[in-house]
């Protein structure tokens, strides 16, 4: 695509004050067509410098639609440093923001910064996450970052010269703005006694600095600037390593990526393929890429082929010739074990694949060679380009063996071992290596040069001591990108003024308009014990015509959370409440979540009710939706509710109503199961904590009662009923949830395993077939076997997702797991944002309130869906990680013997699932004996034969084994992990 640009400046007719007009004409030709884009630019003089010292700008500052003037930001007395002792305002160029954001965000320095529009736009084009961070800096009140629109101000606007590159033009624009600012400040402070602040440009571009010096602009590079500050070490550590000069002479370990044009043409011609890269959890030298052109993931083996791709990156791959196709790896290869001797300092004779890594690969090749089954071969590929890096901040700890002791405060390179084992070691440079040992720290990756075996990054901050509860909790929240900071004041300001004193108003209040009074109904709630954020309550009562009225009442969150206010935006960005073992990170402030919205017993609360008329056979006659007020008569735990229902002595109305509900729920469930809904299992364990210290004392598997499914059935029914209604009202923008049918290939492995090992047949052509055949996968001697198969089947499936109705055709709406045509989330608005949207849409659909703009914008809703899908997934992972951590803590210092099942075999080890703790762990052949016994893996029969010298034995898939479970700390890396040992 070529772009031709012409620009001219024309004088506006009216002379004074009116903006100048400049229009740019772009001629673009692409795809054989020529398009013309004309963009106008109005150059103005009323863009303030925003210095509190400036009189001239306050005089003609512009107002917004409400007549408000934006407050001026830059301080009257900016700070100086050793290099520029006068107080000054900083103007950094683009690269400073791209490379040093972590330093700029630091509390100790970098105040009164002017962000030029030219720079801001460049940052936006280069990296959206960094742009967002920069934007939030400009919003922060104490950092005093001001965005100056230099390209819109008449005096600072420049046009690109003939033959000038865009970068040169932008650099010139930055210098022009510096010059103007300085002159502007001098002239506006003329005659006053106040000190004129200096304007200091910060850049790492030598040419730019040279020209700036020539033009008389004060400037320096970022390192010199930081060295003039109070705490240079800490700040220097936070600067991206990519500002270091790399040694051009160093040999390249990795192949150069293909050029952009080669990639584009390759993708178009179908020679190259694009997709997200993920690293195998068992073998760090193997990754896979899911592409649209192959129904199975492409396998990428070895560092050379992985070519610097990191978990989550979107990569471009080239498929290798058929002779090099392999079997998917069946070996455990762990990075720690193989790379323990690597030196973190660059430049020494590094090899891309060390001897031990090569051995691991050879082993793999040998296996492929011996394998007779051609059909099992999987296409392999190599990475030839990166479309988008998905690098984020990583939490981990410094590999103690990479720290050279006694180096004091001199800078050294060390390795960071990330908590996420799919992330390679990261090389960071630090002056504080020794004080960071034994700490949980956060780092980011800056670059991965082809001359370096490992990616390089920089230190961001320390969370605290390893294994301390605070640091570990924060670490896992950071790892899963959970926003856990307290709610800002602007959010708390949106809460009702009455606070905890808020009451359902008298009947004459306007709030009762369109709201039904259901306070006399026998409504009760059933939740897990200790639940304080009660989303839902239920009732059932007989009607005169012999039918029943059944009601699901959901907390009326949308009454309190109005669209578009600060609280709504915060909730939208959090997306969900995150439940950890000992902590809950709320989506909404406590006052709402656990009090005003929560359908607590004995108090009146606003609710959003779904009321059905049902026949005694639980057939739905009609459904009605209404805003309401209820008064719950009791809050039960699942167990209490069960006991009350089971006790035949109880014949009161409430118990009768609960029995009706239970009876109906069974009928509903049966109907759902008949339609092919899946009953899937995920290992759920509960950690008992000591109530005072919240230290874990025991672990138990969660028990499910009939009352669990009572509540669940009615919630599903409410969700489906609401989904239909809002889809009718908002065919384009209804907030729905779908669960795609998994491709049959996902189940191939599991099907073959069941056939070979257990002679069982898993049918997957529909969810109904799968549900039925899962029911037949029963081992009469082993009740847990069925659960194990369900866990494994669940892993073959896709994950459910939120979407705006317009994004898919109706048949694609289907929820595979629930076997429902359409589905949404409506029943937990306190803890899920999707439900809040569904509430608003339902309220608009029943004409309770007018439709808010945000509900009509499809693009906005799609943005919301994208965010909550990610948040939802992350919340689940964070919750699981928390359980894992606490299970680990509970096991600390104990060795217990447990029953386990073999759920995966590899050529040098196997994975055992321990049902009691819901954990799975790896047992390597090398753990069995020293020296490591030989093993043969028969991958057609799924049997691993271990040639132990004393007594050879076999381990087969789905075997029940006894293992000891123990929490150990790896001395070398400082990693704590659960270790399983086979009991023979």
């Amino acid at each position, binding site marked *: 695509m070529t772009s031709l640009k012409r620009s001219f400046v024309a004088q506006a007719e009216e002379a004074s004050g009116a*903006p100048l*007009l400049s229009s740019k004409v772009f001629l673009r030709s692409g795809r054989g067509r*020529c398009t013309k884009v*004309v963009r106008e630019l*109005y150059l103005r003089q009323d863009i303030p410098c925003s210095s509190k010292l400036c009189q001239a700008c306050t005089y003609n500052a512009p107002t917004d639609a409400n007549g408000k003037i*934006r407050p001026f930001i830059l301080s009257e007395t900016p700070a100086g440093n050793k290099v520029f002792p006068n107080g000054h305002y900083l103007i950094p160029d683009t690269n400073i923001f791209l490379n040093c954001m972590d330093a700029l965000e630091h509390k100790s320095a970098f105040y009164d910064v002017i962000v030029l529009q030219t720079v801001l736009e460049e940052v936006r084009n280069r990296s*959206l996450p960094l742009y967002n961070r920069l*934007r939030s800096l400009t919003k922060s009140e104490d950092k005093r970052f001001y965005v100056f629109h230099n390209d819109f101000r008449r005096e600072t606007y420049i046009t690109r010269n003939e033959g000038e590159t865009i970068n040169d033009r932008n650099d010139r624009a930055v210098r022009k703005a510096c010059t103007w600012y300085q002159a502007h400040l001098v002239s506006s402070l003329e005659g006053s006694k106040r000190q004129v602040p200096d304007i200091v440009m910060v850049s790492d571009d030598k040419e730019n600095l040279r020209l700036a010096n020539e033009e008389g602009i004060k400037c320096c590079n970022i390192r010199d600037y930081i060295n003039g500050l109070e705490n240079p070490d800490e700040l220097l550590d936070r600067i991206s390593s990519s500002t270091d000069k790399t040694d051009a002479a160093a040999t390249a370990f990795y192949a150069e990526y293909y050029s952009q044009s080669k990639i584009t043409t390759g993708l178009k011609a179908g020679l190259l393929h694009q997709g997200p890269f993920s690293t195998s959890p068992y073998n760090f030298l193997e990754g896979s890429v899911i592409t649209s052109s192959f129904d199975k993931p492409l396998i990428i083996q070895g560092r050379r082929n992985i070519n610097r791709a990191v978990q989550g990156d979107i990569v471009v791959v080239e498929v290798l010739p058929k002779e090099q196709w392999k079997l998917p790896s069946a070996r455990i290869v762990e990075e720690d074990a193989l790379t323990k001797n690597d030196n973190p300092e660059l430049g020494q004779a590094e090899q891309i694949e060390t001897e031990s890594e090569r051995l691991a690969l050879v082993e793999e090749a040998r296996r492929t060679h011996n394998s007779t089954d051609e059909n099992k071969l999987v296409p392999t590929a190599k990475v030839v380009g990166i479309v988008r890096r998905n690098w984020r901040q990583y939490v981990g700890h410094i590999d103690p063996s990479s720290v050279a002791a006694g180096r004091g405060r001199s800078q050294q390179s060390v390795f960071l071992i990330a908590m996420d084992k799919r992330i390679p070691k990261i090389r960071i440079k630090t002056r504080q290596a020794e004080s960071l040992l034994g700490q949980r720290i956060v780092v980011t990756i800056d670059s991965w040069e082809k001359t370096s075996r490992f990616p390089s990054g920089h230190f961001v901050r320390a969370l605290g001591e390893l294994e301390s509860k605070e640091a570990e909790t924060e670490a896992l929240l950071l790892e899963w990108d959970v926003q856990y900071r307290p709610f800002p004041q602007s959010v708390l300001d949106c809460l009702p003024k009455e606070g905890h004193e808020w009451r359902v108003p008298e009947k004459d209040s306007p709030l009762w308009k369109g709201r039904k009074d259901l306070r006399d109904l026998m409504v009760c709630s059933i939740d897990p014990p200790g639940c304080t954020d009660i989303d839902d309550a239920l009732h059932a009562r007989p009607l005169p015509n012999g039918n029943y009225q059944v009601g699901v009442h959901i907390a009326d969150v949308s009454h309190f959370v109005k669209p578009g206010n600060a609280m709504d935006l915060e909730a939208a960005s959090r997306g969900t409440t995150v439940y950890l073992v000992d902590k809950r990170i709320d989506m909404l402030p406590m006052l709402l979540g656990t009090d005003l919205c929560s359908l607590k017993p004995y108090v009146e609360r606003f609710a959003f009710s779904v009321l059905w008329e049902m026949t005694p056979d639980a057939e739905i006659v009609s459904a009605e939706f209404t805003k309401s007020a209820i008064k719950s008569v009791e809050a039960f735990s699942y167990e209490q509710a069960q006991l009350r229902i089971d006790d035949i002595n109880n014949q009161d109305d409430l118990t009768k109503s609960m029995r009706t509900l239970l009876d109906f729920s069974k009928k509903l469930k049966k109907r759902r199961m008949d339609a092919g809904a899946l009953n899937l299992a995920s290992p759920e364990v509960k950690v008992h904590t000591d109530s005072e210290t919240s230290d874990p004392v025991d672990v138990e598997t969660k028990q499910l009662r009939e009352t669990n499914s009572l509540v669940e059935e009615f919630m599903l029914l409410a969700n489906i009923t609401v989904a239909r209604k809002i889809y009718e009202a908002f065919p384009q923008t209804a907030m729905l949830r779908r669960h795609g049918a998994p491709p049959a290939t996902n189940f191939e492995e599991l099907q073959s395993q069941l056939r070979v090992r257990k002679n069982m047949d898993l049918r997957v052509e529909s969810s109904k077939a799968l549900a039925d055949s899962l029911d037949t996968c029963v081992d009469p001697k082993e009740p847990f076997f069925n659960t194990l198969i369900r866990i494994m089947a669940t892993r073959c499936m896709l994950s459910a997702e939120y979407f705006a109705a317009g994004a898919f055709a109706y048949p694609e709406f289907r929820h595979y797991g629930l076997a429902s045509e359409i589905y949404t989330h409506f029943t937990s608005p306190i803890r899920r944002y999707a439900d809040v949207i569904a509430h608003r849409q339902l309220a608009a659909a029943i004409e309770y309130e007018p439709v808010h*703009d945000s509900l009509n914008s499809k693009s*906005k809703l799609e943005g919301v869906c994208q965010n909550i899908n990610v948040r939802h997934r992350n919340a689940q992972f964070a919750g699981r990680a928390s359980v894992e951590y606490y299970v680990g803590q509970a096991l600390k210092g104990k060795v217990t013997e447990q029953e386990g099942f073999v759920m995966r075999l590899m050529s040098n080890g196997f994975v055992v699932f321990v049902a009691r703790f819901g954990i799975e762990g790896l047992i390597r052949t090398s753990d069995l004996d020293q020296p490591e016994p030989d093993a043969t893996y028969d991958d057609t029969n799924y049997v691993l034969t271990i040639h132990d010298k004393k007594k050879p034995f076999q381990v087969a898939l789905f075997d029940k084994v006894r293992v000891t479970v123990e929490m150990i700390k790896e001395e070398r890396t400082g990693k704590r992990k659960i270790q399983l040992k086979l009991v023979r």
Partner: protein
Amino acid sequence: MSRYELLSPEGLRIDGRRWNDLRRVFAQMATQPSSNGSSYFEMGNTKVICTIQGPGEPTSRSKTIHDRCSISVDLNYAPFSGIDRKRRGRGDKRTVEMQTSLENTFAQAIRTTLLARSEIIISLHILSQDGSVLAACINATTLALIDAGIPLTDYLVACTSGSSSSYSTQNDEDADPLLDVNSLEENDLPCLTVATLGATDKVVLLLMENKVNVEKLEEMLAVGIDGCKTMRRILDTTVRKHGKELLEKREQLR
């Protein structure tokens, strides 16, 4: 997130305007001597030529109305007016729709009863489109009608406004209504076109094709009507300037 930031948190729009800035207006009258009346009108990069034929004998029977004149609008887009070069056929649905709304709007401004049994043909050529095309057409037509000496009750002026609320990532209360939208804004935001008769608040045309909250509509309307008032001043200046020039020319001829 969209590729552009239509309204920066600092309150500047993509082309450097603030929320209540009109784009540059350039207007000329009597640009085509061969017609009864004509004008050339620019709003930013939206450029329109208007010519008037009539009032005259109706071109067909159906155009003859016994107590007033009939108005026909003929609108066409130059193939080079948009981003892509493309030709629009006569029967293009949107074009027909615009013609009808123009006809209905001007029927309210022209003193049609004074010109019974005649026809006025308004031809509009859109040379360049960058948002607010309908508004530009209305303003151009008003000037051309004045040039043709057709009796009007007052200036018929039009303007557009958009709402940044559904787009803005900030608080709803901070979102300003935007006056005079360009094509980028028009594509992404809910927008309305409003036309008023003179400096009164009498709205003769209100056209909006997006869904928007009622409260936002009020704001948008208020901003649009303010814009119309400014637009009337600009048209009035143009007409007076043109009149003055005509008088001077006549003076010289004498």
